[in-house]
């Protein structure tokens, strides 16, 4: 499998806080990697490190040197949408990603139709419901044709039906060959979407296993086993 992003002995520190301890991680093309762990365990920091939004304080992050430069997109728990129409938000995202004007014009309706928002194209984006806003964020991501889609708890603030809609879209994107890296507290979602699970604890990578092994392993490290059982770390 092609390695897209590799972290070697990479760590991140914010002032006095060690957000990520030195870790090794290789993201392969086609991976559906889920990052799990308690709040403050370093999931978002690892996502941002893999996406290149943060530079490692020690160690290194290397990108695949094969083929075209890697394109990535990131989806956040609460998407930030500008006070513009749905269409304008999408056009702007593609413009920021460097998509040429002619290509933008072609991709915008495609992306809107991909997430089922074509009828709402001229609505103010901020007047959409939470689920619709997240679908617009997915359209923005899909529109830039990313090799890797980073998802930071993408359904944490959605109701169950919106969650299903968004999960279905993510599943379809992965099926189309997009590499996924997601952080999630929802273990059911991890089981449904991920092919590989990394468990973090206090900034430390505890395990990195295929999803079925992570959930059915008899000898997980105690921190991961405790997390799976939902036990509090201080009990």
């Amino acid at each position: 499998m092609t390695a897209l992003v590799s972290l070697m002995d990479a760590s991140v520190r914010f002032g006095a806080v060690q957000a990520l301890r030195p870790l090794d991680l290789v993201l392969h093309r086609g991976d559906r990697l889920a990052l799990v762990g308690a709040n403050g365990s370093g999931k978002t920091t690892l996502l941002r490190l893999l996406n290149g939004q943060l530079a490692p304080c020690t160690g290194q992050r290397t990108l695949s040197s094969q083929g075209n430069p890697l394109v990535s997109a990131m989806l956040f728990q609460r998407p930030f949408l500008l006070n513009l129409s749905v269409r304008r938000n999408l056009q702007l995202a593609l413009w920021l990603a460097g998509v040429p004007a002619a290509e933008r014009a072609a991709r915008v309706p495609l992306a809107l139709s991909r997430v089922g928002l074509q009828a709402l194209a001229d609505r103010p984006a901020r007047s959409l419901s939470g689920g619709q806003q997240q679908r617009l964020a997915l359209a923005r991501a899909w529109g830039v044709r990313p090799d890797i889609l980073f998802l930071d708890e993408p359904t944490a603030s959605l109701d169950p039906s919106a969650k299903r809609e968004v999960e279905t879209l993510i599943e379809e994107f992965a099926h189309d060959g997009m590499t996924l890296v997601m952080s999630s507290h929802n273990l059911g979602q991890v089981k449904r979407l991920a092919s590989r699970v990394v468990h973090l604890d206090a900034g430390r990578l505890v395990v990195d296993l295929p999803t079925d092994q992570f959930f059915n392993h008899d000898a997980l490290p105690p921190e991961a086993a405790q997390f799976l059982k939902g036990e509090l770390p201080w009990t």
Partner: protein
Amino acid sequence: MNAFSDSLALAAQLITHADATLWRIVGLSLRVSATACALGALLGLLAGAWLAVVRFRGQGAVVGALNTLLALPSVVVGLIVYLLLSRSGPLGSWGILFTPTAMVIAQSILVVPLIGALSRQVVADALREGGDQLQAMGARPLLAAALLLIHERRAVLTVLLTAFGRAVAEVGAVMIVGGNIDGVTRVMTTAIALETSKGDLPLALALGLVLLGVVALVNVAVALAQPRQGAVVGGLS
């Protein structure tokens, strides 16, 4: 009591009779203050956006100085511009003292700190909400700030209206650099000051009411020009 009722009647009379002198004064006031605000917006929004996104040593001091300049007295601005533009000043060769251009320069200087300080705060607040995501989408800091100014355009418009209000209502700077020359640099505030000094209080008050009315009309026009907030679309089904 009579002064107020007289001035109300006089204000109505001046407006209904379309007094040419009055409208010339009103027109010049609006032109000078609107031009000063346009120039001030160019510099102030750029400065505010830049200060919201950059990080440099001494930034706190610069922001503090900008906030302090919010209280910049207009007579001090007038005096500085007067010294710069007077015959013996460094810009005396321009020959623009006691012209509307000098008044525009003075009012621009007056509103730049106001627009800069308030727009910096607007962008900084919006950055906290969406800065990371704009960065993740590929926006460089200054571009992100420009996008956030568009995003917060209603707040920016309020900032610009505040600046216009300050410019059109100030008297010190335009009096010093304009000279209150009848038909050339006389604006509403300097006309009010003149009529008051002459003891014609009803006319001064009437002009004051017209000034308030003009600012109110500008506010109404801006409010009408703003799109209404869209209705919330129903949840997913």
